């Protein structure tokens, strides 16, 4: 991509990554100061002048704290999860352009670490990998509040990734590129509007996209008012309840670094990044990013947290339709102004982001052997792991490494699609495992299938033999295609070539695939439909108490429930007309009142043991917790 020596790229990457860490430390300081001012307090003021050394003192404090691992935790995942969150966070900074070229010691240095042609997808992909840190951490803690936080986080991130990605499609269409450097350069031209020269910043041509990006980005980074995964008042900090010491600080670091990244990304994508009056430069980028960060803090200081159904409602009922309208209008205007329909390059990113999210692999390394070995080892892990959650994690590792191999094979676009489709799919798988499988009744491992095992070995050996024969005897027939590495580069990159290829010769198959997907989706909706659609309506008329709600969890009346762990939850007097009693053992609960009780006269409330019939229904029946909701 350029001729600067590799060591300078590494050096600059090193500076950027460490800059992120310092920026993050002072972001916490700024947040506490600004919040304090908004709340008429002083904020940190003890350590150093104006409290400026407070972040360093906090860091030392966190390092010195005891690192607890709960007894109920899934220890390996518990240790790995914060690292996933922390490692993926600052990597996005590598594709953000911090300026033009500068000359140092006779070398020309590009002020960006790398100019990926799928840079924006790369950032979004890292985000979707990073959420695994939260979900796995919540799962591995062995704590219900943490698990609830993790499940919320998964649903929230999947929903908002869609709107986040789609909100950028307008920008992709206008810039005809996914590369941040090219998107930036496209904005550094000026427009003549009625004789006035104004900058071509995409906030002017994509105001709707910008607003949706801003909202989605807040949700993606789990910040207030979308901080449901860690809602302190309901979930006791959610996914990181059980984390302490430096493992906790990894989550903390990741959150703030993500904020900084999103702020810089928003500045670069919509506000012209380093472009500005007088002289272009990194200071403009930092200024714009600072404004965004202030906006973040302002939101936190001002808005109350959303309710969970409101959160999902906003994403699916408001933002998604709006963002689709935005794409349609932008595409139409672009086609009109180009005067041609054959510009297919933008259809590809559109398809990509519609499919979900993504992530890309560190390219330019020649580590194919390592990638292949890790992929195979992880694939073995999928089959051999006893716990299905471990299988799912191993599957993610396999797919990510295969994506890396795709990059080596010059299939960058497929690598991105691979991550988009499969990280999303596996995320759902992990959720399914958590929902459907109880730890203590995992199916017997490998048991009872000796026939299949023998058969598998035989077929496996036969297949291996066939592969070996094919490899040893095969000869290339026909002539090789025209798409050598240089030819692809000349045509504008893998995405462009694949786009031309698909939309010239394969339009009909694409439509067919779209129909298949549509039918599949409808089929899944039918299959997943609850058996009794009346349940929900009944729940609404009787009222429910969320498991996540402290009032619900606070067992005011501990029931002497016939020797089981059942506990009763009651609603406070006056809130409901009927007698609402939620009965729950360790695994399920029901909305069916177990017994009636007079709220207005608690003294007379006779607490009766739950009948066996009711308990049977709770244990084996259709509890609302497990499927309908």
């Amino acid at each position, binding site marked *: 991509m350029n001729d600067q020596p590799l060591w300078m790229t590494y050096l600059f990457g090193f500076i950027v990554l460490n800059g992120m860490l310092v920026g993050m430390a002072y972001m916490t300081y700024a947040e506490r100061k600004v919040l304090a001012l908004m709340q008429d307090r002083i904020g940190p003021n003890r350590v150093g002048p104006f409290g400026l050394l407070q972040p360093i003192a906090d860091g030392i404090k966190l390092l010195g704290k005891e690192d607890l691992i709960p007894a109920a935790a899934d220890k390996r995942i518990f240790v790995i999860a914060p690292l996933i969150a922390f490692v993926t966070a600052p990597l996005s900074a590598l594709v953000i352009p911090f300026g033009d070229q500068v000359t140092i010691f006779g070398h020309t240095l590009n002020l960006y670490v790398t100019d990926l042609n799928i840079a924006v997808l790369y950032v979004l992909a890292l985000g979707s990998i990073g959420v695994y840190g939260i979900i796995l951490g919540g799962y591995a803690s062995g704590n219900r509040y943490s698990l609830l936080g993790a499940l919320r986080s998964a649903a929230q991130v999947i929903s908002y990734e869609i709107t986040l990605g789609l909100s950028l499609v307008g920008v992709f269409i206008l810039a005809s590129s996914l590369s941040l450097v090219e998107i930036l350069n496209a904005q550094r031209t000026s427009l003549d509007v009625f004789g006035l020269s104004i900058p071509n910043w995409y906030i002017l041509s994509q105001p709707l996209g910008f607003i949706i990006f801003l909202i989605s980005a807040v949700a993606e980074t789990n910040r207030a008012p979308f901080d449901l995964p860690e809602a302190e008042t309901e979930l006791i900090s959610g996914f990181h309840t059980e984390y302490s010491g430096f493992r906790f600080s990894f989550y903390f670091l990741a959150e703030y670094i993500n904020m900084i990244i999103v702020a810089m990304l928003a500045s670069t994508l919509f506000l012209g990044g380093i472009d500005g009056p007088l002289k272009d430069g990194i200071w403009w980028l930092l200024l714009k990013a600072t404004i965004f960060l202030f906006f973040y803090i302002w939101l936190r200081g001002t808005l109350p947290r959303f309710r969970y159904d409101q959160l999902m409602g906003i994403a699916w009922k408001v933002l998604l339709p709006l963002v689709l309208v935005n794409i349609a209008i932008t595409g139409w205007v672009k086609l009109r102004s180009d005067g041609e329909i054959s510009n297919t390059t933008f259809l590809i990113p559109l398809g990509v982001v519609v499919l979900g999210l993504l992530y890309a692999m560190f390219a330019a390394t020649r580590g194919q052997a390592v990638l292949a070995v890790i992929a195979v080892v992880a*694939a*073995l892990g999928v089959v051999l792991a006893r716990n299905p959650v471990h299988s799912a994690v191993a599957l993610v590792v396999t797919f990510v490494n295969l994506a890396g*191999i795709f990059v080596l094979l010059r299939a960058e676009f497929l690598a991105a699609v691979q991550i988009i489709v499969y990280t999303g799919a596996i995320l759902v*798988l992990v959720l399914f495992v958590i929902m459907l499988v109880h730890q203590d009744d995992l199916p017997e491992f*490998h048991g009872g299938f000796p026939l299949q095992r023998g058969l598998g070995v035989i077929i*496996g050996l036969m297949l291996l033999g066939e592969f070996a024969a094919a*490899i040893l005897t095969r000869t290339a027939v026909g002539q090789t295609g025209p798409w050598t590495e240089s030819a692809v580069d000349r045509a504008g990159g893998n995405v462009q070539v694949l786009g031309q290829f698909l939309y010239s010769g394969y339009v009909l198959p694409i439509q067919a695939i779209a129909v*298949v997907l549509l039918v599949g*989706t409808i*089929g899944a909706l039918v299959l997943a439909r609850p058996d009794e659609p009346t349940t929900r309506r009944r729940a609404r008329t009787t009222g429910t108490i969320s498991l996540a709600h402290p009032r619900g969890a606070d067992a005011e009346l501990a029931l002497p429930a016939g020797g089981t762990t059942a506990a009763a939850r009651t609603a406070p007097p006056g809130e409901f007309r009927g007698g609402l009693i939620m009965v729950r053992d360790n695994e399920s609960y029901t909305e069916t009142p177990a017994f009636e009780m007079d709220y207005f006269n608690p003294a007379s409330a006779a607490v009766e043991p739950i009948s066996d019939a009711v308990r049977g229904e709770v244990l084996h029946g259709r509890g609302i917790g497990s499927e309908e909701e």
Partner: protein
Amino acid sequence: MNELSANHFLLLSAALFIIGMMGVLTRRNVIVIFMSVELMINAVNVAFIGFAWEQNSMIGQTFALFIIAVAAAESVLGLGIIMALSRRVDTVDVAAVRELRE
């Protein structure tokens, strides 16, 4: 086989495919079986893209893209079926689901 060639990727593909197949045949947890199927699909993609790379052709990549799209549809339906199944028989053990056989 010192020079990096499609053979290497064929080997990788074979390894992944066979691992996935063993998973499908030996595991009893339907979710893990589902993951193993995904593994086999991906093994095929590796072979396609490896050949496309060796032949300087885009056709292999195009095909792999279609495979991924179909695999997405398949996983949507597969998860739907798993969901319906687990709701019906309250287990994810494939050995427990034998209504059609008996």
